[in-house]
């Protein structure tokens, strides 16, 4: 995964959660980020789908553990 993709995913997540992107890192997860509830998780998925023109499988949506893993998943889908 390229750092550009990670930074972009991070920026989108920051917008969705309405937090400063500097507070997010690859290990950021729903447990750590207060705003990251199930509604915001769906918003994040939709924002990424809209931005990259990709679709996540239901299993992939459920399996997203942290931002690093999500960015990797995005990279494989747009590769």
């Amino acid at each position, binding site marked *: 995964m390229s750092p550009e993709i990670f930074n972009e995913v991070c920026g*989108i997540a920051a*917008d*969705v*959660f*309405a937090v400063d992107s500097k507070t997010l890192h690859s290990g950021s997860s729903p447990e750590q980020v207060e705003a990251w509830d199930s*509604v915001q998780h*769906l*918003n994040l998925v*939709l*924002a*990424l*789908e*809209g*931005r990259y*023109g990709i*679709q996540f*499988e*239901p299993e992939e*949506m459920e399996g997203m553990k942290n931002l690093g893993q999500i960015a990797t998943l995005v990279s494989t889908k747009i590769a």
Partner: protein
Amino acid sequence: MRPSGLRHEIEELLAGGHWHKAAARLRVLWESEGGVPLAGYVVSAFRKIAPHIDLKPHRCAILRSFTVEPIVPVLKACALTSGIDLEVHAGEFNAYAQELLDAGSPLYAFQPDTVILAVQTRDIAPELWRNAASAEVINRVTSQFTGWIQAFRRSSAANLIVHSLETPAAFSQGVYDSQLEENQASAIHQVNRNLRKLARAERGIYVLDYDALVARYGREQWGDERKWLTVRLPIAAPHLAHMASGWMRFLAPLAGRIAKAVAVDLDNTLWGGIIGEDGMAGIRIGSEYPGAAFLALQHALLDLSRRGILLAVCSKNNPQDAMEALRDHPGMLLRPEHFAALRINWNDKTRNLREIAEELNIGLDAVAFLDDNPVERQQVREQAPEVMVVELPPDPMQYAQAVRDYTAFERLTLSEEDRERGKYYAAERQRAELEQSVSTREDFYRSLDQEAEIMPVNALTLGRVAQLTQKTNQFNVTTKRYTEQQIGELMRCPGWRVLSIKVRDRYADNGLVGVAIVHHRGEISEIDTFLLSCRVIGRTVETALLAWLAEEARALGGKRLQGWFIPTKKNAPARDFYREHGFALRSETPTGQLWELELEGAALRCPEWVRLLAAVAENA
């Protein structure tokens, strides 16, 4: 400018406290790439700006049979960039029926201004979604809607927007369906027709043509079956913003964010090329490409003018060159008589826009501005943040669509006055010429040959009366806004009078242009509302109407006529109204002044040059 650059600029404007500029740049950012990814950012940026700029508050409840949470931030961002601070309440999933039917439900506790009933065919009419349906099913689904709408009206005077039913992408009987005269599609269309009829019979109920919205973007593209089956979100990510825009087309007019006029640039906007350089033979306008793109825009503008939106020209040009093209170019659809005001000169656009607003007697915040040049647009945004600047796409072939999609041009009701408005303004220009030619003001009033007809409001005039209370800002003593529903209730209240005034003169029938609402209670009659359209103020019909109110109060045994003047940013023209008519200041509070007229011995009379036709007192 690249989006990242724009965001950086917005951050700096926010940090520096340049709220209006930041809001203006956010609008550009949103109009160029609005959608789910950006919504959170726009909403949180506006949270900082909101305390410092003028936004219209509006409370919107969404009742739904599907997941709407991801659309809510997009809707809020659309609203904020259109000048509306939207408070949204989403009803419990699939609880729309209970919420509508139960007067004690969270829906009514929220006290919404507008309620959206966002339902889809497969949820509320599964038979219609799966099978060709019988008349019995059509009736059952229709009566379901009837029950909901009636229950809603019993508990709330808010506006209600109901989604129409959409047809499926594939019919249950396949192509055989289209061999039948009565089929699955026609059953759904029949329900929608019934729904429109139900809505028209009630005040403040509107139908959102969900079927047409889905069709516009393509049935298969619109839906996302995975998201529907997993998280009950039936709309694919790229179209969530389109759903939000669909709602905004109703919310903008309901929240009062409407453009009353659109000021249009000429070169490369109304036609292709530059008239001063390319000449009559060189500019591109007509039915063939590339002129066809500009002709399409002119058709869109003509449609706006038929909705009562005034057209104006705001162009940097030599007036002779530009007028020749407007008058004589064979490819033009719009001609000088379509425009209520013309500003063709070398002054800056903001100044011209201010003059146009003044000439048309409307606020600068009711003017939309159309210009192909991003620099001009930005300048206007910065110098006159009230103006609604339409973010035209770079390609002229998309101009017409951009205008048709602009929410401030939407109207939910259209009166006869709206359709004829352009003509009134042409007549006004003639009147202005006459005023120059007669010597005294009284001669001018006499020469107008005015006739005023005062009538209690009735079913035919209710819509226009409510519309006037919503839209009149200048000659309006209390600026109380009423919905049709509320006016209907006032009409039936004992002691209350809701009157309308129609005005004709030798140049035009101005139609219904004024409203007075009076509460008669014993010795005191209080004027709750007194307003006149700016089309007729300054011609003494206001005196005629006020004199008539005094006469009626006297006839009902009243001793004193009272009225509040509540100042707003815009109603300065009405400030001295009561004083000038012999009222005395009775008291003053931080919100306004209470004026009073002793009816006995008052000199208030209808001016001799206004012929008064009054259909008197059937419901006093």
